[in-house]
């Protein structure tokens, strides 16, 4: 009989939560750019740092950049924090779903208008 060593679920929690965090950051930044034109300009400057033809893509380039950076950094941080832990999955699963619902609302223009009182 082959015995397999059970891996703690912490790394899996880190992977899924960090994906949600990256996407939620994207949504939050999108609301920020809708609220402030100077913030929107700063997002374009972020995109220009590394994306070719970022000027043509506009502030979207910076939003993508921050999403990817936020996703990967939070993955590293959460992985280091949870890599040897077993976590009750109910709370992180709920956080994952709620985070993605919020992120979806944050990129939906009618909701942003409602949020900003436009």
């Amino acid at each position, binding site marked *: *009989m*082959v015995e*397999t060593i*059970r*891996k703690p*679920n912490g*790394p*899996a929690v880190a*992977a*899924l939560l*960090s*994906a949600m965090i*990256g*996407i939620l950051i*994207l*949504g939050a930044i*999108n609301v920020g750019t809708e609220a402030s034109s100077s913030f929107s300009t700063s997002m374009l400057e972020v995109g220009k740092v590394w*994306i070719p*033809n970022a000027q*043509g*893509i*506009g502030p*979207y*380039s910076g*939003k*993508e950049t921050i*999403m990817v950076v936020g*996703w990967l950094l939070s993955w590293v941080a959460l992985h280091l924090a949870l890599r040897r832990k077993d976590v009750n*999955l*109910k709370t*992180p*699963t709920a956080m*994952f*779903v709620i985070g*993605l619902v919020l*992120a*979806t609302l944050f*990129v*939906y*223009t*009618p909701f942003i208008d409602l949020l900003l009182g436009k």
Partner: protein
Amino acid sequence: MSKETGPDEDRNGSIDPPAPSTLVVWGLATIFLLIVIGLTAPFSVFLAESSLATISAAHGTLATLGVIVGTISGYLVWRLFVGKIKAFTDLKVLSLISAIIAGLTVIIGNMIYIAYRAPGGPRAFFVQNNPAVHEIFFEFKEFIALFPFPIAVATTYIIWAYKEQLTQDRGLRSWLGIAIAIAWGALMIAYLLGAAITKLRSV
């Protein structure tokens, strides 16, 4: 003593085809489809006349492939979710392909987005002629299209890292099922709205 069964083996002892076989079948199916396309439509007509025709065709083809692969992966994750998966190797391969396709589609989509936002491009056309459609649907499409990539990478990592343990861990495989269902939903929204843009005013 009960017989140990791995994720590649079902209760009757049938074993999944190995990953190389799956890839060979995929390769042959792709070559077959390319031959059908080549024989039934001139390539120039297939790509249209726009300067971005090749990139647009690649974007649309990748998105279509993503929908097909994502749908099959979704079904396999459903089988995993209910604890009856027989083709775990296929799920591993398809999840990896899904993640790669999601990433490539976003990268190529960025190239098309420049033309989409350019003066006189589709965005300007929609803003001028139907701003409500632009704000409610097409602005939404730009962002929802980014959702599947990080989720696909995370779920692929989990499927490859945890493999046989997933069949024993109900909580984790449930979360995996939820994550892939959300990614698939986002992919379908982006795909359908992308098709709508192409039909209404292509780049």
